[in-house]
């Protein structure tokens, strides 16, 4: 990750400047320390997870219950992983377009004073603790969404995700909405930063060709901002996946795998850990730690996918000198 070693020239042709040596050792040391700590944490977690996985009398991948504290422990990650991925992606799909719109409005449409005011508000919202969003979700959004959810079910029930016989307030959809509202400010704040840095040169080139403002944004701002927006969305996704309190408050904590986002389905790895860690016994804790490791792997995979998407267009990313 860090550039190690010295430049080939520095030894023979130029003397290294005096502050350089200590700094190099300090930064290398810090890097190594970080790796050691991370490795230690990983070893500790894996060591705790293995006995629980061995004690599991069901398949960790396919079992749809979580009875890890029983004398014959039975638990499976399937429903939790599914719920984590589905709720986070729903949140992402809801939040990203709105966040991009907000960011573009602030960076390219709003008058300057309004823009800086809105930018300030967004930064503030991004710093609100997630428990606040969770409480707001359970107190306000859950009752509020009953009507709209019923509407979706009545008129769009033929779309499988809106199907189901019973519509509830504490559903996958409402949990995802809370997650979406929670990650929206951070995605908007970073996107705005990125859009503001879009090169004036290319914006003027587009305008001089007779582009309207929206066309200019499509030609010169969005392509430039793409990698940054993807990174912002990934950061949001990571937050949504790891979010504990907000979803633990809202999800009904079922162990089903269902695409019906209006029904009483919904759980996630993080919510399950928050709900279960307190009264878990040794095996139970090990099982939760194992689920945490799965969450880690999912996050890692998502990040790698995002990096791949960003680097796919490297050739184009080189900005003209």
């Amino acid at each position, binding site marked *: 990750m860090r550039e190690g070693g010295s430049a080939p020239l520095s030894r023979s042709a130029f003397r290294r400047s005096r502050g350089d040596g200590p700094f190099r050792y300090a930064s290398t040391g810090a890097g190594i320390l970080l790796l050691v700590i991370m490795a230690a944490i990983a070893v500790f977690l894996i060591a705790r997870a293995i006995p629980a996985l061995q004690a599991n009398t069901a398949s960790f991948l396919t079992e749809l219950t979580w009875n890890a504290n029983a004398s014959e422990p039975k638990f499976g990650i399937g429903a939790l992983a599914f719920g984590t991925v589905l709720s986070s992606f729903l949140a992402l799909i809801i939040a990203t377009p709105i966040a991009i719109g907000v960011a573009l409005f602030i960076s390219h449409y709003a008058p300057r004073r309004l823009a800086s005011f809105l930018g300030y508000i967004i930064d503030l919202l991004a710093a609100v603790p997630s428990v606040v969003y969770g409480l707001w979700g359970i107190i306000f959004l859950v009752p509020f969404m009953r009507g709209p959810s019923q509407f979706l079910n009545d008129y769009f029930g033929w779309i499988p995700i809106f199907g189901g016989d019973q519509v509830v307030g504490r559903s996958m959809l409402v949990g995802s909405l809370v997650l979406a509202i929670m990650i929206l400010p951070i995605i908007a704040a970073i996107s705005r930063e990125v859009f503001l840095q879009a090169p004036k040169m290319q914006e*003027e080139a587009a305008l001089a060709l007779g582009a309207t403002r929206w066309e200019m944004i499509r030609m010169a701002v969005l*392509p430039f901002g793409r990698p940054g927006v993807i990174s912002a969305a990934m950061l949001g996704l990571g937050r949504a996946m790891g979010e504990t309190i907000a979803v633990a408050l809202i999800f009904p904590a079922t162990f089903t795998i269902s695409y019906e986002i209006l029904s009483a389905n919904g759980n996630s790895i993080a919510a399950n850990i928050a709900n279960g860690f307190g009264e878990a016994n040794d095996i139970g804790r090990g099982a939760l730690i194992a689920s945490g490791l799965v969450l880690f792997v999912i996050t890692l995979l998502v990040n790698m996918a995002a990096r791949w998407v960003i680097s796919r267009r490297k050739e184009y990313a080189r900005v*003209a000198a």
Partner: protein
Amino acid sequence: MAKQIEVTDVDAYYSGHKAIEGISMTIDARAVTAFIGPSGCGKSTFLRTLNRMHEVIPGATVTGKIRMEEQDLYGADVDPVSVRRTIGMVFQRPNPFPTMSIYDNVAAGLRLNHRYSKSELDGIVEESLKGANLWNEVKDRLPKPGSGLSGGQQQRLCIARAIAVRPQVLLMDEPCSALDPISTLAIEDLIAKLKQEFTIVIVTHNMQQAARVSDKTAFFNLAAQGQPGKLIEMDDTTKIFTSPSQKATEDYITGRFG
């Protein structure tokens, strides 16, 4: 395909600060008009008032009248976007769209206006690249990004992009200042060719260049730092460079100041 521009008493401001004052001139069709003058005298500012690019800058305003043939460019019912479609612009630093291929760069302006068929688009892209003397160098790599070209090639790509939409007028703000002598010559040749079809205005700091490429030359100057720039005189290029009527012009072109 080319139109004359009539400018009457134009002032331009940056957030209240007056950058140019009282400029009136006629820019001939199918000819090259060069703007010369010391740095900061408002050449770029004035050039950008001609295609309503000046007002893109926050707080920037223009007063006065600019007509292109019968049309008042600053008329109340005139859409600045349509003005910019008829008056193209090439900037000092080459600015192709870095995320677009060479082909898409040239087609960018075309795609804004109409739906062209693939074959029509192919035809115009080829014609424009040939018009910009770039076709032979890029015809085998049209799908490659425009940012992979040399600076001179990028600038010709920008010219191709600007002429692809068939503007009436082409404005160029120091189009060669970031280029080597060979690329500069390539662009000067191109200007000589383009003036048969377009009305061309070029800002340059290079006296020889102004003398080589232009038919008319306008000399701008400012009384002192912080004062607005003014048009000192405008005449046939040969006249300006042999017997200018103003002392300041003579001083400037002979290199006594600026």
